[in-house]
């Protein structure tokens, strides 16, 4: 690109033809391959893409914080007309933190565990401003206050482990903004947080952008997050920006087939259509050698020979919509796609027999202290949950982290015993059983883990991993096991040759397939899936969700799907249960609960889940659920949600609302003041 810089001063940050490589050993990975972008003051640019698309490495290139072996090999990074690429390390240090602030994904690991948070913020101040220690400390309190840290003057002495995830991320933002930079780069700032906290954090970033007139680069994999907050969105694939446009334009009239494929894979786009989710075939590109042509061509249904031979030059439409594609999608007169369909009646499956029933389930974890490990209290993880799971049904369990949903899953699968209450499996109480009978019964309930890679022995081949449940239960002989393993691989869409490979040789999606296959090995009636897709990219997530649905249709298996992601739960579930602080607050047919929530907490969760629909997201910007989940060691009296509930009254503190049905075909809700459910579905 040969652009005259002095003639083009527009843009706070302007990246031109950026190339970045990471060398490790003999291989060179071409992670960024000619990125052009710009951000103005006061503007939010969203960069979206799946893992490996180069979005994070583009952001890190700007700060020159590349991982070991990383190097910018070409291009320019102009900040206010000055190129950062040729700057020396000491010159760049003035830019980092001073002119550009950066927020990272995981606020726990990104903060120094041995340093008080006030000192960590003050350090940033002292690096860029000639101030005394005391002035820096005062500034730290000021910034922490600005990012919404309650009682900031007192909390400055706290250490990161004493704070919640949301508060830690506020500290990260305070560090980034301590010197009032011109530009903020936020790399997946809310991915590790609950949806309600995510919304709070995005709100903080957006408010500070206005107050400080900053430019913001928001890097995320979540098309919903950028919808509400970005002015423009750039879509990355294979280390390049393949399409960029104003947010409304991109979400309605995307031209690049990859962008369209990303949208199509979103679970909320397929709810109620009964169709499987659209997936993106094939694998992400291998960047260890330079790519000729369009990197997406091998996975693109529209690709031509020309796409494979040369990279398409940019096409710029009126309004600045730019894309790199020879065969763009046409949207002649087409209306913007409807993001979320209207709620419809749930699938009728109330007649199916009950497989597992939980009756008044309690689980408390002791808190021990002192020489004799005396019990000084307990964490009430599950407090009186009753629910039933029917054959062939999917029961979706949602709630923020710490609500007890995972504990219920672990109790169901026999990994944990309840403190009191019953787990009825075909009439047998699993909670009371011991020994061989329990072991045999538990065959019928299997567990699928969130992180399949961590849940597999790295030194076992896939074949042994799949055969292990049968070995443990001494079911089938050797040849039958081998046949079953092959059958399982077929069921989850993997080749037979996979038996000889090790877990690290598979992709994330393939490992999740293996995890599902292992859960199915003993032909269970119920599979408990804890966050089955939360570690996967959208396109892979769609493949796994489709697979789970297909298998259910073929084998009438039941699922309990535990997830923080309401869109996923809504797509796959027949019944949804919403948990808050150990209590089931609302349960009922998926479409009723999602479409006409009766509990204020359910309503708040639905309102805070970002959806890929810009006008709707902007309209909901102020619908934030304040506060954070209360302590489970000392839960609030009465209704546990009352401390955050906008409708809370005196009665909520004095008496606990029982879970009661609202009417035939409707949900049950535990609330003194359930939201009015009018016949047309609005609340």
């Amino acid at each position: 690109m040969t652009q005259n810089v002095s003639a083009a001063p527009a843009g706070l940050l302007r990246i031109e033809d950026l190339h970045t490589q990471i060398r490790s050993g003999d291989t060179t990975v071409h992670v960024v391959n000619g990125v052009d972008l710009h951000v103005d003051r006061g503007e939010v640019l969203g960069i979206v893409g799946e893992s490996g698309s180069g979005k994070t490495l583009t952001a890190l290139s700007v700060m020159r914080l590349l991982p070991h072996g990383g190097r910018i090999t070409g291009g320019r990074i102009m900040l206010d007309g000055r190129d950062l690429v040729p700057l020396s390390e000491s010159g760049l240090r003035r830019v980092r933190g001073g002119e550009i602030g950066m927020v990272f994904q995981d606020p726990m690991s990104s903060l120094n565990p041995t340093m008080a948070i006030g000192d960590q913020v003050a350090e940033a101040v002292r690096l860029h401003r000639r101030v005394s220690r005391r002035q820096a400390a005062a500034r730290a309190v000021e910034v922490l206050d600005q990012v919404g840290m309650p009682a900031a003057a007192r909390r400055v002495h706290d250490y990161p482990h004493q704070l919640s995830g949301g508060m830690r991320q506020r500290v990260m933002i305070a560090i980034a903004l301590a010197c009032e930079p011109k530009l903020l780069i936020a790399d997946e700032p809310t991915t590790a947080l609950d949806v309600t906290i995510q919304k709070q954090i995005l709100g903080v970033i957006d408010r500070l952008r206005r107050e400080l007139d900053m430019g913001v680069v928001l890097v995320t994999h979540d098309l919903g997050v950028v919808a509400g907050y970005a002015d423009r969105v750039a879509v990355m694939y294979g280390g390049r920006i393949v399409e960029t446009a104003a947010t409304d334009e991109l979400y309605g009239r995307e031209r690049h087939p990859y962008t369209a494929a990303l949208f199509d894979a979103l679970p909320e786009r397929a709810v109620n259509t009964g169709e499987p989710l659209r997936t993106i075939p094939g694998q992400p590109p291998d960047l260890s050698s330079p790519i000729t042509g369009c990197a997406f061509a091998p996975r693109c249904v529209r690709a031509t020979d020309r796409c494979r031979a040369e990279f398409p030059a940019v096409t710029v439409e009126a309004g600045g919509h730019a894309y790199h594609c020879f065969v763009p999608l046409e949207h002649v007169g087409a209306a913007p796609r409807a993001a979320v369909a209207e709620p419809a009646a749930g699938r009728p499956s109330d007649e199916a027999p009950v497989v597992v029933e939980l009756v008044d389930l309690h689980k408390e974890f002791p808190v021990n202290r002192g020489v004799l490990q005396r019990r000084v209290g307990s964490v009430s993880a599950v407090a009186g949950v009753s629910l039933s799971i029917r054959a062939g049904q999917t029961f979706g369990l949602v709630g923020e982290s710490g609500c007890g949903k995972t504990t219920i899953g672990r109790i169901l699968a026999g990994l944990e015993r309840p403190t009191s209450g019953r787990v009825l499996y075909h009439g047998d109480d699993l909670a009371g059983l011991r020994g061989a009978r329990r072991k045999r019964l538990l065959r019928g309930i299997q567990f699928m883990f969130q992180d399949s890679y961590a849940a597999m022995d790295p030194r076992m081949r896939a074949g042994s991993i799949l055969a292990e449940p049968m070995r443990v239960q001494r079911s089938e002989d050797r040849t039958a096991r081998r046949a079953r393993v092959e059958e399982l691989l077929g069921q989850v869409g993997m080749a037979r040759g996979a038996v000889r490979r090790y877990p690290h040789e598979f992709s994330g999606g393939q490992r999740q397939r293996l995890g599902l296959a292992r859960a199915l090995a003993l032909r269970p009636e119920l599979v408990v899936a804890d966050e089955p897709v939360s570690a996967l990219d959208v396109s892979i997530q769609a493949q796994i969700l489709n697979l789970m649905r297909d298998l259910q249709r073929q084998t009438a298996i039941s699922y309990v799907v535990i997830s923080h992601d309401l869109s996923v739960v809504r797509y796959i579930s027949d019944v949804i249960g919403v948990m808050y602080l150990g209590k089931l607050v609302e349960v009922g047919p998926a479409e009723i609960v999602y479409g006409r929530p009766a509990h204020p907490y359910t309503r708040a969760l639905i309102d805070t889940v970002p959806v890929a629909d810009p006008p709707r997201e902007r309209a909901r910007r102020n619908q934030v659920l304040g506060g954070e989940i209360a302590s489970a060691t000392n839960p609030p009296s009465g209704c546990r949600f009352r401390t955050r509930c906008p409708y809370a009254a005196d009665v909520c503190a004095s008496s606990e609302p029982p879970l009661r049905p609202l009417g035939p075909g409707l949900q049950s809700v535990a609330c003194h003041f359930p939201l009015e459910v009018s016949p047309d579905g609005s609340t």
Partner: protein
Amino acid sequence: MSKFIVRRLWQSVLVVLGVTIVVFVFTRLLPGGPARAILGPRATPAAIAAFDHANGYDRPLVAQYVVWLGHLATGNLGYSYKLNQSVAALIADRLPKTVLLVGIANLIALVVAVPLGLAQAVRRNRLTDYAVTGVAFVFYSMPLFWLSILLVIVFSIDLGALPPQAPQGDFLDVLTHPSGLVLPVLTLTLVTVALFTRYTRSSAIEALTQDYVRTARAKGASTNLVVVHHVLRNSLLPIITMIGLTIPVVVSGALVVESVFNFPGMGLLFWSAAQTQDYPILLGTTVVVGVATALGSLLADLLYAVVDPRIRSAR
């Protein structure tokens, strides 16, 4: 925090008691027992019985243990019949010398090794790192006696700069003749530095790859600042473990170096007692080393809490 200290002190007391029981039982179980060892192989059974009776060795084991424990508590560690001296006096003579020798060597090693290891971590896989690693491995794999002799040959025999033998007198004598300490200290220091740099390097490398280091860089911090403010404290835990493990070594002495330089420390005391089956000395020194081990791990635990706020609040 103070509660935690009290609790850990009690635990240390229990550990020491456990050590005394084990040591006591083992020595009483040896063939012949202390009477045979003291009176010699030709002692008559009557003489042995008389000796056992006179020293209370014919009483029940529990009673003997309680009496022995009572002596320990009053500083009476027993009496060496072979050397005709009380064990307490022997240890009081040897212990300060050993602590001086091994303590100085370890302190110097720590002061040298921590910055060296940090520097290696920052320049990992570059020339400085490889050079230090190489030298460290050479010293670490060198047998102590060989290294000692090598140093004696170079500095005492060839150059004549330093005495080849440590001062033989009491603690004061050692203090007033520091030149005699140089070679033994140097030998120990070289080997210990080699060990300590390995620990420091690997824990600092781990700390350097942490996300908070990236955060510090994103603030605009220089490498030196990142290392001093963020890496050092976070890589101290393994080093503290190492210091805790060093304390019993400081007390029990460095046998090889003490032999080569004929340094009358705890190591030599224990060694000669073991050869002559001088049970009272063996018992006494083992108890002292047991106490030092318990104190060492207590010290390490307290230092963990000082360095890491997460450990502090978990108590």
